[in-house]
């Protein structure tokens, strides 16, 4: 990544790693969310159990990606974007903070929920995650609502996040979204300041 810096000013582009991790998280969150909504209505069958397992694996992966992104972010500061109104800057920081928080908290809430129903989580069928709480039907019902509510909070935030990005791109016509899109070099030339 260091070799890229002379060509792409850091205040314009996210690093390729940051971009890749962002879009990987997007894909997994969309898939995991959709599977989650769908699987709860499936009849009990071996296939359903497999789908529940995949949903859990996706959740754990999203959690790990969020950690990786935070670590990467510490080492590679987010490219600054000048010229935004103060309220947008604050709204953006707040929503990014909440997005990261939810990417970490939602998988944990799912893990807690699974534990409370008495079902162990075995990541990728290999890594046994410890049970966080003992089997408890009342607690499981609460955690189910928590997991559900947090996910719809995430959905709302994602819509705001994506809506803001699209507005910047198509209405404001600035480079807020472009810095998170792949194929930066060509775009970068035109915007070099």
């Amino acid at each position, binding site marked *: 990544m260091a070799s890229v810096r002379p060509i792409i000013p850091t205040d314009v582009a996210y690093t390729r790693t940051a971009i890749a991790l962002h879009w990987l998280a997007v894909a997994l969150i969309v898939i995991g969310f959709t599977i989650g909504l769908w699987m709860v209505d499936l009849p*009990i*069958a*071996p296939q359903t159990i*497999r789908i529940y*397992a995949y949903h859990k694996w996706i959740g754990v992966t999203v959690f790990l990606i969020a950690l990786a992104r935070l670590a990467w972010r510490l080492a590679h500061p987010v490219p600054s974007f000048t010229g935004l109104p103060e309220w947008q800057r604050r709204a953006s920081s707040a929503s990014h903070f909440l997005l990261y928080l939810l990417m970490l908290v939602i998988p944990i809430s799912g893990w807690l929920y699974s534990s409370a*129903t*008495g*079902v162990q989580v*075995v990541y990728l069928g*290999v890594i046994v995650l410890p049970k966080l709480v003992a089997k408890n039907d009342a607690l499981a019902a609460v955690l189910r609502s928590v997991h559900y509510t947090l996910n719809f909070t995430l959905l709302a935030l994602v819509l705001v996040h994506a809506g803001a990005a699209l507005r910047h791109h198509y209405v404001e016509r600035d480079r807020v979204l472009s810095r998170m899109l792949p194929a930066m070099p060509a775009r970068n030339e035109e915007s070099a300041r």
Partner: protein
Amino acid sequence: MKPFRSFVPPLAAMLLAASGGAAAQGVLIDKSEIRFVSKQMGASVEGRFRRWKANVDFRPGDPAKSKANFEIELASIDLASEASEVETRRAVWFDTAKFPVATFASTAVRSTGADRYEVAGTLTIKGCGEGHRRTCRATQGRLGKRRRRGPVHAEATRVQNRRRRLGGHRRHRQ
């Protein structure tokens, strides 16, 4: 992957009240549990039976004279979700309409060291079980430090082939 193959309780843990002394001892049902663990895609899934009866004559001083009989109401199964509880009552699994109760009847109890007992017996599910034996391990242990006298903790481990035991269970849902 056959996640349902091990639905029948491979482990049943029974907590029996022990009041100490050599006299026969019964079971405190409300302080006891029959639990089991099954496997789904390598993940353990805990369950238990909510309603069961016990007729236990536990003689710590004379284990050979001890007896333990259990009647488990299979429809009272507690699993991860109500849907899976309903599933286990269907004819391909426990078939609780025809076979509402599973029984365990001890045939021999022996001490295997301090506070430990081995219980052999017959577990009958879906009407089959005669001639099959189960071994149990019983421990009179301390589950809580504040208890002066530990309850009895027993684990029943299935020793026979599950397939025979369950009869039609192989035809699980696709």
